């Protein structure tokens, strides 16, 4: 049961989920905002793929790059238009705003493109697989692992080695203090949204890569995954997000194997019961942030 195929599956799912969770946590860490519109960034990336592969002769790598850029720009735009004006208001106002932005983007896709699924042309490598040690390993999974790890390394370098990265980490630990030390709030927050958008864009390539089609509601499942992974790992820690992503992948795969068939369809419910249990008994998640500031409430 625990063979090479299983391991590669876990690694590719886990690294994909880690990226997903990172995109959510990087905003949560600074603004304490659970961004419901995060899933829609993945949808936007998907529709960019659909439009560019269907109607332009551009090579696939360029299209993939553009999808990530579009997703990033959407993320920045939502911050500028919707989140910045409500930032100083209550947390509830910010959460409802993100829910409204999510509905807005979803229905805009419905209105502008179509309620029906649109097929996305993928490069051939997404359907091919390679024999490794006697098992069929899809190239898609290997690509996911390689790209995710590259993204994780790049993000780590950004956070550890650049001034912006240091400001981001400081803001995640204690935003008020960071501002007092002269770090401009808007720049930090915009950068966090940009990183979140890039993560969503990269995830969209592989998420769409699995189904080869895109619908207006495609953002919901990855959002749920990101929620669970974030809570498991710890909402205040970037390392926690990565750990949470892998733990989620392992758990969902194990549940798939060990759950009796009549309970299998309730798998998602079990994951969310787990989320509630964690939030009640260990709200800081697996990885505790060193400098978590308790919100009063």
């Amino acid at each position, binding site marked *: 049961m625990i063979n090479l195929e299983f391991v590669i599956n876990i690694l590719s799912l886990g690294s994909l989920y880690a990226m997903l969770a990172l995109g959510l946590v990087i905003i949560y860490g600074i603004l304490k905002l659970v961004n419901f519109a995060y899933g829609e960034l993945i949808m936007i990336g998907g529709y960019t793929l659909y439009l560019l592969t269907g109607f332009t002769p551009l090579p696939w790598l360029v299209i993939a790059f553009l999808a990530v850029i579009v997703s990033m720009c959407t993320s920045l735009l939502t911050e500028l238009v919707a989140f910045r004006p409500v930032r100083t208001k*209550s947390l509830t106002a910010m959460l409802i705003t993100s829910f409204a932005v999510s509905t807005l983007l979803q229905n805009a896709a419905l209105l502008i493109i179509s309620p029906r699924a649109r097929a996305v042309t993928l490069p051939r490598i997404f359907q091919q697989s390679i024999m490794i040690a006697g098992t069929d390993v899809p190239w898609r999974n290997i690509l996911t692992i390689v790209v995710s790890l590259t993204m994780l390394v790049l993000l780590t370098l950004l956070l550890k080695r650049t001034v912006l990265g240091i400001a981001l980490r400081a803001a995640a630990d204690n935003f008020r203090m960071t501002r007092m030390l002269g770090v401009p709030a808007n720049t930090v927050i915009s950068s966090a949204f940009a990183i979140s958008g890039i993560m969503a864009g990269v995830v969209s390539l592989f998420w769409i890569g699995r189904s080869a089609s895109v619908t207006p509601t495609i953002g919901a499942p990855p959002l749920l995954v990101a929620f669970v992974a974030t809570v498991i790992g710890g*909402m205040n820690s970037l390392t926690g997000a990565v750990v949470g992503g892998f733990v989620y992948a392992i758990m969902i795969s194990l549940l798939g194997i060990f759950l009796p068939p009549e309970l299998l369809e309730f798998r998602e419910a079990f994951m969310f019961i787990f989320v509630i249990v964690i*939030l009640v008994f260990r709200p800081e998640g697996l990885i505790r942030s060193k400098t978590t500031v308790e919100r009063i409430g």
Partner: protein
Amino acid sequence: MKIPVRLKFYSTPAILVLALLILAIGAELVNITLIVRIATVMFINLILVLGLQLFMGNSGILSFAHIGFMGIGAYSSVLFSMTPEAKQLSIPNLYPFLIPVHLPFWASVLVGALIAALIAAVISYPLMRLSDAAAVITTFALLVIIHVVLVHWDRITNGPRTLFGVDFYTDLWTSAIVCMVTVFLAYLFKESRVGLRLRATRDDAYAAASIGINKVVMRWMAFTASAFLAAIGGGLWAHFITSFSPYAFYLTETFVVLAMLVIGGPYSVSGAVVGTVVVTSVREILRSIENYLNIAKVFPQGVFGFTEVILSIVLILILVFQPGGIMGSREVHWPRFGRKEKDSSELTPSVDEIQGEEHV
């Protein structure tokens, strides 16, 4: 619970009930099927919005689970109101012991609501400690869990398939009268000792704790009551729409109810009423425009989602420019009574002001 006898106390619910009564009579007099349907749905939605206001407005915590309890209320009331023959046709996999159970319509809705309230009471107690993002994610998780269970427990709900064959019971006046009673109950709760204490924990958790208010118990009572009202709304809705699937009780409906409450003003009962009436009107106008465009084939592929796009833009604008909603924390008053008493919302800083300082 002590109910005050002062006339002034009742001016707010009286005005609101009167306004709703006028709307109901208006719909009855116009007597166009479409208008009557819109009014009925509005009254049912208002019950849901009032239920959400009862918890969210008084505790200051955003709850996503509300529509889940509406779903529980809808399905469990239907299990009691359908005749055994109809049940065997509509839910072929139903547990055999549930087949002969049969109650009148009113009793079914009530039992359904009690079941939902019981479920809410049992599972919510440990969750009420949580605030802010953790509270929101847990209620969201609850919604997802309820949704998954409704979709897959086909021995109760007929699975993801549409459930047909529910008898029509909820007409205009059924929904209107229940709605008016709910307005009264929501107002009584807000002004009751529990409501007052809960609002105190919302405005200043530490000050409230220092005078011995148990935040968890107050929130828990409100959450249970709110689930009860949501389930009443769900039961009525099920017997109005007569065929539905679990997908009716998910994020789309959550958005509508939340938009109604937030646009009207979550901190007052009047806000819930105003928001529901305003959003229903705007939605129906937008929807008729959408229908017109679709029938006239102005756009070749059809227009979908236009209503929701406008509604979410309005919601964001309200949050940016008028975060307390149309009503803020004010209630409507009889002018003569309203002038004498100082509005309590003017004495204490609003929730937004307090929370706004906490972050950023």
